[in-house]
């Protein structure tokens, strides 16, 4: 019975702790802003941010959120769809890997701002360039991790596959990818927040809506509380997407978390 209570309490605490931490931070932030009279154009207090947020019309919020979310999710999905097969190809051919990897590193380390003109001139100013930019920013971790995971497949499982003369594609789909799942999800978690950043950066380069646009626009018009309001929503979006990725892993790939939970 007492054990039962302890377990309940523990579970309760597990949910409470993060909420408490967030609340503490926000309260501290408010107090610091008030006590040290920090000007709002440097760091607006949470209450100012909330006020600014309420000042923004619901339709504007809906617009901003929809735009950023759509681009982030689209870019993320493109990144997944492109990266995993590419990673498989790279993992299986050392020659291809040696050839393509430098190019991927080059692409990933090119700041978007530097190539914005080419992107805007060739793709226009619609959703396409933004999805593309999001993709560019978020694909890399997925490739690196998937390649690593594919190469770290236990040799004994690969030997089993080879002994069956199974076609390469089945070795990949049925053995290498499943055993790379922990790697892939670790990357998917990194990439999902990168995708959100990507969507924001894309809005910096070419857009008239979206949370990123609103942040920079508000900053440029010195409305820092409004910028923070949009930033706060952006960050919550990121948290939700991150959580969704974690939940997908728990639901569909729970075995990949087994060592974690076994007692």
């Amino acid at each position: 019975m007492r054990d039962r209570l302890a377990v309940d309490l523990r579970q309760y605490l597990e949910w409470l702790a993060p909420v408490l931490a967030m609340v503490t931070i926000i309260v501290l932030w408010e107090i610091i802003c008030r006590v040290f009279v920090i000007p709002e154009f440097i760091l607006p207090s949470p209450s100012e941010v909330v006020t600014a947020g309420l000042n923004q019309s619901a339709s504007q919020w809906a617009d901003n959120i929809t735009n950023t979310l759509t681009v982030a999710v689209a870019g993320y999905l493109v990144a997944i769809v492109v990266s995993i097969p590419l990673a498989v190809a790279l993992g299986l051919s050392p020659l291809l890997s040696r050839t393509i990897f430098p190019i991927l590193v080059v692409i990933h380390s090119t700041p978007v701002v530097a190539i914005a003109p080419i992107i805007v001139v060739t793709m226009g100013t619609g959703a396409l360039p933004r999805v593309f930019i999001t993709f560019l920013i978020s694909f890399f971790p997925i490739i690196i991790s998937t390649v690593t995971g594919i190469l770290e497949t236990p040799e004994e499982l690969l030997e089993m596959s080879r002994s069956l003369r199974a076609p390469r594609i089945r070795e990949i789909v049925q053995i290498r990818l499943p055993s790379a799942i922990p790697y892939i999800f670790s990357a998917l978690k990194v990439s999902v927040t990168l995708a959100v950043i990507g969507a924001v950066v894309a809005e910096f380069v070419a857009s008239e809506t979206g949370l990123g646009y609103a942040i920079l626009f508000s900053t440029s018009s010195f409305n820092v509380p409004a910028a923070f309001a949009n930033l706060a929503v952006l960050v919550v979006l990121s948290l939700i997407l991150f959580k969704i990725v974690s939940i997908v892993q728990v639901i569909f790939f729970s075995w990949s978390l087994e060592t974690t939970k076994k007692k």
Partner: protein
Amino acid sequence: MNTHVLANASPVLPVIHPAIEFDNVSRIFGTRSRGQVTALRDISFVIDRNEFVAFVGPSGCGKSTILRLFAGLIPPSTGMISANGAPVVKPLDKVGIVFQKPTLLPWLDIESNVVFLMRHKYGRVTEQDRRAARELLALVGLSDFARSRPSELSGGMQQRVAIARALLMDPQFLLMDEPFSALDALSREEMSYELQRIWSERPKTVLFITHSISEAVLLADRIVVMTPRPGSIAAILDVPLPRPRGAHSQENPLFSEISACIRSLIFGGANAR
């Protein structure tokens, strides 16, 4: 030292190729600490179609290496390996292997693990395969665990899954690397009888690695006795015990005679023969 001579020496009659042939095979491993290590040196033997051959020998004498060589998983350093007369240059078709470790897939349940080789080799699993898989699970005493994950099974249970998995393939070559090592005396005996039954109902060439001398004598048509450093063949013994064999076979004086012979080969050195 070999008691058998190559079967395809006669050039006139239509040649019937031996199922498995090792001709002067050596295998060297490159290691980081000790340079080139010769795991097997000058191994030659011939196994006929549907023969049941057991390999016994001390730990590290190269039994598993022979299995992997024949399966085409690693190439020989020198010498020639052939299956049904054709040189083995890539993994063999129609092979079922029980590896020394169970190597189950942790993300599949036990039944799916048993049918996995089918799915992996042929890309699909028929309802018939599933039924056969369930029968095999019953045979190895794991019917209740069809939906369990490998991590929920004991060591011996995992090994039995690996056996069921290989048997489901109904392969032309069945290669088993110490398949019963994690089993208790009872399961071991049961499994031995089942294996004999399966083998007699659907004949196949069996390469059976074991460290139990009595198991080798009970099951095999012939026994290859190996010595280590570098791994080589000390002797190849015929086991002319009548089949079907069972507990009663152990009462046959031949049984203890052969056992003693192997024991003396292993314990007393090969020269004692």
